[in-house]
């Protein structure tokens, strides 16, 4: 409610953005109190002690431990309070909820390409259902971009060379700005788009109406054969390579004795840098696909391997 009293202020539209707005209001109030006090004192002193004014100037004080310790301690306590508040909201924002919808985002100079698991692709737009957490898996093809939705008070840089997860959730249907917030070259200011939040039913309709392209996982499966991955990882191949059925989301023992969870990042790295993390009891034979597959193809492969998660090897 209090947000409506601030002119020009659009309230945030996700569960967390309310907390961010509250934090913002807290910061504003704290600043206003400090500024108000300061300006009051400055004005008071400037008026009372101006050179033309006859007033009591005896007993001037040059230093005072009490005051110094007082305002140092007060600022310290105030600042620490703000730190704790800000950090706790931050943790809340980046918490991963269960049951998510995955959407892939590829950033490149100067557009956002988004892709739903069913294969529906969008450019500079992203349709999402309301009140449902959506996990964005973001990658950049070239330079650093930053995925910024002011209405959700959320942004994250997309650094080339790695996947970046970001959870979003929109409370109310509508159209909201999507900006690139990290300077990325000539058309940086043109790298903007729209987040379209819809009621779940509308969203399903929308998905169904999109050009029927094959689901990402299916395309990934085709790539899997095209690129020759199935030659080694497939059933009954002569080369001994780890089977990929049921791998996703499970711990994988590595040759150096450690284990990793086979998430998106791990699979991506295994395709690009296959010999950095060797699965225990396998030979490091796989060639690197660095430079041979685009980010678009990579995410299809990842989706495909993910779709194998349910099957047992």
């Amino acid at each position: 409610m209090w947000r409506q009293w601030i002119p020009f202020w659009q309230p945030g539209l996700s569960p967390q953005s309310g907390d961010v707005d509250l934090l913002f209001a807290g910061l504003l109030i704290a600043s206003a109190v400090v500024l108000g006090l300061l300006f009051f004192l400055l004005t008071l002193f400037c008026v009372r002690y101006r050179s033309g004014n006859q007033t009591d100037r005896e007993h001037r004080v040059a230093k005072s431990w009490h005051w110094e310790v007082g305002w140092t301690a007060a600022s310290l306590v105030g600042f620490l309070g703000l730190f704790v508040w800000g950090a706790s909201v931050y943790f809340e924002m980046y918490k991963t909820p269960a049951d998510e919808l995955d959407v892939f985002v590829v950033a490149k100079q100067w557009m956002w390409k988004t892709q739903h698991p069913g294969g529906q692709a969008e450019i500079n737009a992203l349709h999402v259902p309301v009140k449902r957490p959506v996990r964005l898996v973001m990658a950049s093809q070239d330079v650093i971009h930053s995925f910024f939705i002011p209405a959700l008070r959320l942004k994250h840089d997309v650094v080339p060379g790695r996947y970046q997860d970001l959870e979003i959730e929109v409370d109310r249907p509508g159209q909201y700005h999507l900006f690139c917030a990290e300077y990325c070259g000539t058309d940086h200011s043109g790298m903007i788009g729209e987040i379209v939040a819809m009621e779940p039913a509308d969203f399903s309709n929308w998905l169904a109406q999109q050009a029927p392209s094959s689901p990402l996982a299916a395309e990934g499966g085709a790539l899997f054969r095209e690129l020759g991955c199935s030659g080694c990882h497939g059933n009954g191949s002569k080369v001994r390579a780890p089977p990929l059925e049921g791998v996703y989301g499970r711990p994988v023992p590595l040759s150096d004795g450690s284990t990793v969870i086979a998430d998106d990042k791990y699979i991506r790295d295994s395709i690009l840098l296959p010999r950095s993390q060797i699965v225990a009891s396998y030979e490091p034979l796989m060639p690197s696909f660095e430079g041979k597959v685009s980010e678009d193809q990579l995410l299809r492969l990842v989706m495909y391997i993910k779709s194998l998660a349910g099957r047992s090897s």
Partner: protein
Amino acid sequence: MSETNYLTTDYTLRSWFLTTDHKRIAILYFASLIFFFFIGGAAATVIRIELATPQGDLVSSDTYNRLFTMHGIIMVWFFLIPSIPNTLGNFIVPLMIGARDLAFPRLNLMSWYIFMLGGCTTLFAIFAGGIDTGWTFYTPFSTLYSNSYVILAAAGVFIAGFSSILTGLNFIVSIHRLRAPGLTWYRLPLFLWSLYATSVILVLATPVLAITLLLIATERFFGVGIFDPRIGGDPLLFQHLFWFYSHPAVYIMILPGMGVINELISCFSRKEVFGYKFVAWASLAIAAVGFLVWGHHMFVSGQSLVASLVFSFMSFIVAVPSAIKVFNWTATLHKGLLRFDAPMLYALGFIGLFTIGGLTGLFLACLAYDVHATDTYFVVAHFHYIMVGGMVTAYFGGLHYWWPKITGRLYSEHWARAAAVLIFFGFNLTFFPQFILGAEGMPRRYHIYPPEFQVWNVLSSGGAAILALAYLMPLFYLGYSAFFGPRAPANPWDAPGLEWQTSSPPPEHNFATQPVVTRKPYQYNRNFQAEPQNA
């Protein structure tokens, strides 16, 4: 004039360009900085005119990107960082410590030549076609994708860095070794404490920038990718290295301004600075802790959660000494005899603007809010409140304060006050709307923006027009006074510092006899008359 002073010892060009007199070198720097300030200002003017409308109708996107990059590079490295240290500092430090020159006068001259070489290299890069990476040179854009003169511009900044290092080295050693007899550390004016802290940062942070720029240039020139993600390099490593310099560099820019404010507040309140030791040590605390906070530029970059937490915590800690200073300045006014000459107007403006800049800094240190505000106009507004509202205001204040000492002439008080007031209003009108823009989510470095942001942008552009005019005013009345103003007495403000105890302008070697310091700085008697430090 019966005696010769540093300006009248010799009139040849050679005597200026081969001088080792710190005062003449300060003048050389001053002239160069005015030049760079107006180049950077011109770029800002075009940017603000462009942003008055949401469409990109004045310049193309490529030109716009080159303009804000040029504005940033020129203003940061060729105006703000050298501004107070190399002009006012160069002139005043030896006078304040009662020395005949800095410890290494030839190094001082060399630093100016290096600075000019760096400046010319950068200008050449700008006029040969410009550079469009932003002043931050983020990889991999700067190394792999930008089609502009990155290496040349980086070389200019690299070269200018050595001038910073030499200046810092000279100040540190001079303040340690050349203090007049009786001038103990706790008798140093606070301007020197803050310049000492600044010098520590200059000496220890600048080399990291140098090596970072060198790596950028190597990567671009040879095509080897030390930050190239395609061979496993990490663009975030670049950001760490860059901000290890560039965040402390913010304190390089603001600390000298804080130093000047101490001198002004004390002189025009006719009172000792309240809590001298706290203010002095706060400078060093800012310099030291300022090195531990750089990661707050990277909260959304993908650095680890632990790192973000530590850097956020440290960022709040570093705000404490700044707060201490503001409270002490305010307390200094208490029971003073306040005169509102132009330097004092600048000082009061500084306190207000710096406090707003500092408080909004807390918004950005605050993890959850920074996620929203970083890379928006909120950041732009915040650092302009510190850099322009803080540093440039303090620079103008200091310039007016020491102007009679530097030139030996008095300026028109009326014009000076008018300019101070106009700058204050123009500044707020320019930059306050940008806080609102940022809070509403307008990203920075946007050439074209959605129309709903236009109202605030028009206000900001209008303020910028006022600010530009206000910044031109001193050029005229100060310029006029330098040649035609009335002669200044040795101590026009009746201040107690050593620099006021020699003639205006000072003789070639500053003091006719070696001053001996007998008391603390900023002493005034019961009748608010200055008690000189050396009497």
